[in-house]
């Protein structure tokens, strides 16, 4: 998801891309990576990764495996593994994740819980799935 310089690689293979001219309302459930450059109201859930672009406005709770936030979010964020918050991000809500990086200039109003257990749980679960397979 991230390249060597720690910058986000905006995945070309994202399952869903919401462009800047689009406003989405409702419950968005995905299985693959999601890129949001426009607006979203409701909820956003995926087993994969989420990228919220610089000009994006999201009024929703976000639940994903990994995420990079560069836009505005009004809602709680729950990330199983790694959450990267860019310098242009503006978050109003609680944040829960396994690992975090916050760039200078980012604004967060809310509680931040960084628990490696979340991250490990995710990895353990993945290992179990692999063993079962």
């Amino acid at each position, binding site marked *: 998801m991230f390249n060597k310089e720690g910058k986000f690689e905006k995945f070309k293979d994202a399952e869903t*891309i*919401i462009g800047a*001219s*689009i406003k*989405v309302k409702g419950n968005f459930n995905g299985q693959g990576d999601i890129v949001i450059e426009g607006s979203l109201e409701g909820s956003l859930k995926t087993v994969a990764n989420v990228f919220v672009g610089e000009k994006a406005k999201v009024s929703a709770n976000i639940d994903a495996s990994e995420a990079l936030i560069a836009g505005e979010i009004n809602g709680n964020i729950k990330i199983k593994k790694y959450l990267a918050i860019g310098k242009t991000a503006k978050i109003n809500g609680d944040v829960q994740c396994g690992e975090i990086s916050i760039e200078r200039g980012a604004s967060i109003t809310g509680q931040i819980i960084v628990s490696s257990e979340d991250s490990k749980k995710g990895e353990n679960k993945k290992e179990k799935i692999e063993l079962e397979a």
Partner: protein
Amino acid sequence: MNAYIYDDFLNKSRYRRAINRVEIRLTDLGLNGKIIRLGAIKNIKDVIQAEIKNGIKNIIAVGNNETVNKVISSMITNKDYGFFQKDVLFSVIPIGGNNSIAHSFGIKKEEEACNILLARRVQQIDIAYAGNNIFLNKAELLSNDAIIEIDDDYHLELKQKTNIKIINVNDDNYLAFKNKIISSDNNLNLVVGGRNQDNTFITSKRIKISGTGELILDETMLVPIPTEIGIIEQKINIIVGKDRSFN
């Protein structure tokens, strides 16, 4: 075991030379078959049903997008098609204008189509519907106030007038998301914008469109909205060229 369905517009004298070229080429390649002229028959469904029952293997539409639509609509609404669908192949020999479906199959000219029929490169694709009509490539939305509901979960509102396509089988080699569209995955692909930077790509099973306006199916047929778009159960096996524009 080939049936060639000639559209009625091919009766015009200006298409005579093209038809002659096709018929000579088909004879040279040993691909002769039964010729059915749509102008002469009233019920195309009954005729195609009879041909499928009689064990026809290849049904080839000779004409344009509209011909393809008429022939495939008749094939899939046929009671016997479900049973025979694995054995029956479809293709098209493009004659005249408005042939984007044939072009997406990698078939650009009528004589090239004959060679492609001989090569028998087969690919299975989904068939999409909008209201009571089917389409293969895309439905383009012409509306300023449409609300697009995706899989009953969420809906899209447009901030500005923009180009919206619901793609089943891609026909645009320059589309940014070309490689993400799979022609037989039972999914529709909604693309906003397309070639420029501000674009949207959403995959879904079912799309409901409300508001006012129209959809253009395969650059041929107009369907008023509100309407629902989805993928039908049956798939179709088509003979394609190597330069087709889809996966």
